[in-house]
């Protein structure tokens, strides 16, 4: 009886010590790496955004976060320069009713307080780039339901709402099949389509013409601007046609196309409301 109890005690002590040590090692590992990880995430995101807009780092980018507030009866936008760490810069805050009337607009003096003062449901992010005072383009974050899980993507738009690039940043589609929608050659099919083109854009299971396939494949190697120059005639011909689905992955192809269409449509309407507010005195 007594020996049993001492054995139980020994086991409990061993397990406790092992768990405490494991926790300490994990904590130390996290402390060492998380700064690098955050920095690399921010770098990758900024790089992806500038790359989508074909801009160098001289452009200034405003990051606008959209939230749903007051139990879904208000939409709140918060704008701050991209890449700044949260809590270090003043944030511009604009509130709208659901029917598009502005309720409130202003700078929050204490950004740390503004982040925690009420329950906000994040809805997504947008990035507006300006260069020498003129708008240089937008990047909109979007999400769509893929074959298994969400597909998250960035859409680059020119100031006239023409697609400058689509980049899938997170997905769980099948490797070798649905995952192809995340490649540059698939996303190349959206390049140059306007917001109005997108409204009627569909997906077809017809085989992709060989010359178009070959041209899209070179997107992985050459910059987008040069690619569009080189293939201008082909792009003009294909713009009137639907998006060709990835062989064996029609669902993923449709999902991304629907997501791009909806995201651009929503953004265009939101931007009409937001643009005058952001241009005003800040």
């Amino acid at each position: 009886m007594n020996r049993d109890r001492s054995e139980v005690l020994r086991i409990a002590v061993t397990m406790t010590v092992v768990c405490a040590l494991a926790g300490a090692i994990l904590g130390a590992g996290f402390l060492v790496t998380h700064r690098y990880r955050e920095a690399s995430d921010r770098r990758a995101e900024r790089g992806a955004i500038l790359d989508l807009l074909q801009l160098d780092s001289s452009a200034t980018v405003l990051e606008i976060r959209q939230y749903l507030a007051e139990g879904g009866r208000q939409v709140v936008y918060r704008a701050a320069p991209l890449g700044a760490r949260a809590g270090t810069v003043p944030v511009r805050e604009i509130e709208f009713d659901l029917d598009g009337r502005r309720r409130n607009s202003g700078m929050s003096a204490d950004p740390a307080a503004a982040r925690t003062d009420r329950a906000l449901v994040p809805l997504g992010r947008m990035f507006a780039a300006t260069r020498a005072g003129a708008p240089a383009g937008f990047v909109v974050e979007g999400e769509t339901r893929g074959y298994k899980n969400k597909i998250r993507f960035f859409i680059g738009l020119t100031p006239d709402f023409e697609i400058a690039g689509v980049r899938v940043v997170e997905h769980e589609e099948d490797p070798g099949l649905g995952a192809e929608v995340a490649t540059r050659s698939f996303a190349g099919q959206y390049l140059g389509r306007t917001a109005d083109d997108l409204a009627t854009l569909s997906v077809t299971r017809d085989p992709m013409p060989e010359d178009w396939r070959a041209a899209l494949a070179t997107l992985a190697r050459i910059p987008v601007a040069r690619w569009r120059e080189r293939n201008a005639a082909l792009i003009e011909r294909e713009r009137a046609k639907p998006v060709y689905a990835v062989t064996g992955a029609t669902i993923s192809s449709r999902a991304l196309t629907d997501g791009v269409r909806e995201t651009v449509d929503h953004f265009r309407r939101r931007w009409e409301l937001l643009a005058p507010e952001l241009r005003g005195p800040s």
Partner: protein
Amino acid sequence: MSAALHPGPAPRARDLILNGIFGENPVFRLALSLCPAVAVTTTVLNGVLLGVAVLLVQVLSSLTVTLTRRWIHPRVRIPIYTIIIAVWVSVIDMLLAAFTPALYAQVGLYVKLIVAFAIIISRLEVFASRQPLVPSFFDGLGMGLGFLLALVVIGAMRELLGAGSLAGIPLAPGKPLLFFALPAGGFFSIALLMALFNRIERQVTGTRAKAKGGGHG
């Protein structure tokens, strides 16, 4: 080769490494961890990265267990092995995420799954918990290398047949046999390579390999 495995006179480093690669290759001979071996091997590069991660986890876990085996209570050894493996997997996961973000984006999901790889815990139970430091190190190294080799070979075969490329470089137009990129094709690839592996071994040693996968660990 595999006779040297169980407690007895200290086995030699070379034999231990060769045992991991050929005699008891985790995938082709022991048929352990087939699920991840199928899941990640759609390309060679994925196979290499996961193989290297498994190699590191195997060696580090074997070393930890062989150094601490005197204090591990036998009744709770399996949970403790699991914690040890989980710690090393998490550390490697954090390092990969911080310093190789591009590669991590592709195989990050599978790196976390190494915790549940049968091959690692089986080597801890069968070998590292009974042998001193040096043989445990070489056993871990051999098993890790064997797994890495298997993943690279399977990845090469599937990428070549399924996607018509090798290490991302296109070699054939289109997709010659799309089937091989799918999970079912992964199992067929492993079966074909296992048969090839057995045939080569029979030609080298002149004997038929004994199937011993099921009874292991």
